[in-house]
């Protein structure tokens, strides 16, 4: 009995591990996530991902968090008329059923500030998107030098 329980528990754990790069919510998925590797003395780093609402009701993402950063924000990036680039706080992301939203290099992005430690190349860091309603959507984002080919 105990063995069967352990076997089932292991299977669940393995499934959870396999979904490590995915999300803890069946209706919303995170894909293509990564963090840009930065020098060990860097105070900030940026993250990128695509979040998709697979459910039948709208989803509102209101922020982000990560254990390695004192503060994590959703950041907007705008190109102004004179060609300069301006960052600002992206207060929320609304996702209608079936919608996706991508945080991309040079565009809107995740900003991890006050890094308590700078993760190394190849490491994975858990980043969670906060919803107005419901649990946080967490995903393990690999630290990379460059964007993965498919993103």
């Amino acid at each position, binding site marked *: 009995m105990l063995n069967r329980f352990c076997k089932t528990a292991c299977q669940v754990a393995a499934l959870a591990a396999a979904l490590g790069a995915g999300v803890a919510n069946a209706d919303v998925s995170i894909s293509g996530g990564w963090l840009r590797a930065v020098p060990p003395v860097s105070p900030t780093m*940026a993250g990128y991902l695509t979040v998709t609402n697979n459910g039948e009701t709208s989803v509102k993402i209101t922020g982000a968090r990560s254990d390695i950063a004192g503060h994590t*924000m959703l950041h907007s990036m705008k190109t102004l008329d004179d060609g300069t680039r301006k*960052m600002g706080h992206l207060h929320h992301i609304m996702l209608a059923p079936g919608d996706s939203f991508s945080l991309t290099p040079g565009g809107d992005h995740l900003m991890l500030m006050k890094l308590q430690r700078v993760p190394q190349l190849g490491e994975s860091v858990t980043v969670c998107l906060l919803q107005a309603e419901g649990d946080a959507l967490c995903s393990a984002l690999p630290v990379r030098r460059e964007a993965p080919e498919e993103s």
Partner: protein
Amino acid sequence: MRKLLYVLPLLAALVLAGCGKQESDLPVNTRLGGDFTLTDQNGEPFQAEKLKGQVSILFFGYTHCPDICPAVLAQVAQVYRHLEEEGVADQVQPVFITFDPERDTAAHLKEYLPWFKADMIGLTGSLEQIREVAKQYGVVFIKDKEADEQGYLFTHSDYIYLLDDQARVRKLYPADFKVDEVVADVESLL
């Protein structure tokens, strides 16, 4: 025989032209660039004159910038690695100029830049000095007023400048430049 006397110099000229250095097609931008003095990552004065004698890839940014600046630094490092593979990296100098001297001190640049492994020179200085250099290169940077306990950001332009061995601007690239294009342009100037 007389015909040969005419033809031989012409042939010699053609052969010499073929062996000599090809002039790059990149036009000289006479409106941007100029002399300046800043401070390098070792705390030493750095004059624009030092850029002469090699091709430079020059760009502006700040190390607290989370997105564009690290991406540009990584891309420039990629260009440098390609040039290393071609055996010409010693003729090329990447140069990073901060417009955030308050946080990007020489000591901080010295710790920050080597990670990119591109033999980068980091330049800082007084805000006045940096404003002057930025003006020479048509760079805009504005410290955002929304600074809070998380720090401050800049609204800024993000061009990358290719300088020839006379420190003249020959081409500008956007922040999301193509590595292969820059490598080819650099090689055309060597």
